[in-house]
């Protein structure tokens, strides 16, 4: 399971303090390996989202280093906690946005927009407006937009936290299928133990004050995950393991 080559990105001794003096992160070490589905798991306010934003380049670390394998950050896709769609643009236009900002003409982008929408099962909703869609469908549009540039790295910040469980399970499955098909590396933030175990090949457990990775858990689940996996003993065992790690992480600092 060990990655033979250098990691896609390596965070070393990273710290982050905000202007109000709050230390969000301190001494964070984390590798992101090619092709893995890495989950950042931890209690609220432990700096998971901050870590993700720093990987995306939306925020700068106060100390430590973030080193990319080729020296530059590749194209990344980002999915926020909210769908974050432009309400004045229809679904196709929203998905077109990253390509449009990259200077691609609409005609040129058309097949890729269609493919991205096909991938999330919204091919027939290209002309719908965001407010006409359900929460789950909006999140699908958001995922299509993040993947339309075929980024080697997809960052997701608690994307399904606001969705009901049925929708969430469905989106989990679809996300796994998409990531496998596109061979995208995914870094996924969640505070749900079950979601993290179901999705990931590896879980990084965070502790708070200051935020850092205290444990990593390899998930030896099957390559293709389904409802069967959710009911399997190894799933339960890994969940127990992750929960225990989370308890230890929270236990170190009294809440």
């Amino acid at each position, binding site marked *: 399971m060990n990655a033979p080559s250098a990691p896609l990105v390596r965070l070393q001794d990273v710290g982050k303090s905000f202007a109000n003096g709050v230390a969000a992160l301190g001494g964070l070490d984390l590798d992101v390996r090619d092709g893995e589905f890495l989950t950042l798991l931890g209690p609220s306010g432990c700096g998971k989202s901050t870590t993700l*934003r720093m990987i*995306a*380049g*939306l925020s700068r670390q106060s100390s430590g280093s973030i080193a990319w394998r080729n020296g530059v950050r590749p194209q*990344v896709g*980002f999915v*926020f906690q*909210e769908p*974050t769609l*432009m*309400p*004045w*643009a229809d679904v196709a236009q929203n998905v077109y*946005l*990253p390509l*449009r*900002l*990259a200077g691609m003409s609409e005609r040129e982008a058309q097949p890729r927009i269609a493919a991205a929408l096909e991938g999330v099962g919204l091919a027939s909703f290209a002309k719908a*407006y*965001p*407010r*006409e869609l359900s929460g789950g469908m909006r999140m699908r549009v958001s995922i299509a937009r993040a993947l339309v540039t075929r980024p080697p790295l997809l960052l997701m910040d608690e994307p399904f936290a606001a969705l009901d469980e049925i929708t969430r399970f469905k989106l989990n499955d679809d996300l796994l299928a998409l990531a496998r098909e596109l061979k995208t590396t995914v870094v996924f933030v969640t505070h749900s133990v079950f979601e993290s175990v179901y999705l990931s090949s590896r879980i990084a457990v965070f502790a708070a004050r200051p935020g850092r990775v205290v444990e990593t858990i390899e998930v030896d689940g099957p390559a293709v995950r389904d409802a069967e996996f959710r009911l399997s003993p190894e799933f339960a065992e890994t969940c127990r393991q992750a929960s225990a790690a989370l308890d230890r992480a929270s236990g170190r600092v009294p809440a």
Partner: protein
Amino acid sequence: MSEKRTASLQARKTKGSEGEPEGSRSSRLLDIGLPVGVFILFLLAWEAVVVLAQIPPYILPAPSVIGATIVKDWPLLSASLMVTLTITFEALALAIVGGVGLAILLAQSRWIERAFLPFAIILQVTPVIAIAPLLLVWLEPSTAVLVCAFIVAFFPILSNTALGLASTDHNLLDLFELYRASRWKQLIWLRLPAALPYFFSGLRIAGGLALIGAIVAELAAGAAGQGTGLAFRITEAGFRLNIPRMFAALTLISLTGIAIYALFALLSKLALGRWHDSARERER
């Protein structure tokens, strides 16, 4: 009837964007018919009171007399209406260009905003009637009237557009940054569309205010002005005790105000159409 209406409203609420449910036509008829009916009743009552109490037209003219005066004096009044309309729309056009332009400038940096916003606020809080005499000293009466109307229409457009530009979704701003969008692209593809609903609510206010500004300034200009707008007709008719004509001019001003509001409400609905809640308020 009322039960049916409630049911149809509920259906609309849950159905949201889908096709119009049954019964919406009758409820819409009620929406329009009720106020129109009440207004007609009001006019009839007015007419009746004037006739029965034998109130002379130089105190309170009956609606029929006002209507007849509008027809009889139409050449005169329509010319004045055109003058007032021209001033109102010229002032609005200037206010849109100035207000939106300055809002974009203010959005560029907090420092620019801090430096210039007080001026805009001073312009806003000073009652325009108090500036009008000064403007009349400085400027040609016709220009002074235009400037007055501009000043009152300018601020709502500026403040609303500035608010809209500032309240762009932070995640969307992050997204644009992630894809390395230039400031220019961020402005035209994100900030301006996001500010559009705010701009339109400013525009609706400004439309009414521009008319008020034009009327007020013309009243202030009074005898000094060679102005021939509707406000001038009111003053003139007052001097001549031609009360029906006063009412006729007043009616035209009212109708103009309503028309301006309706025009911008329609524009706003067309522009925001399917995407913004404000364009769907009637469906609630």
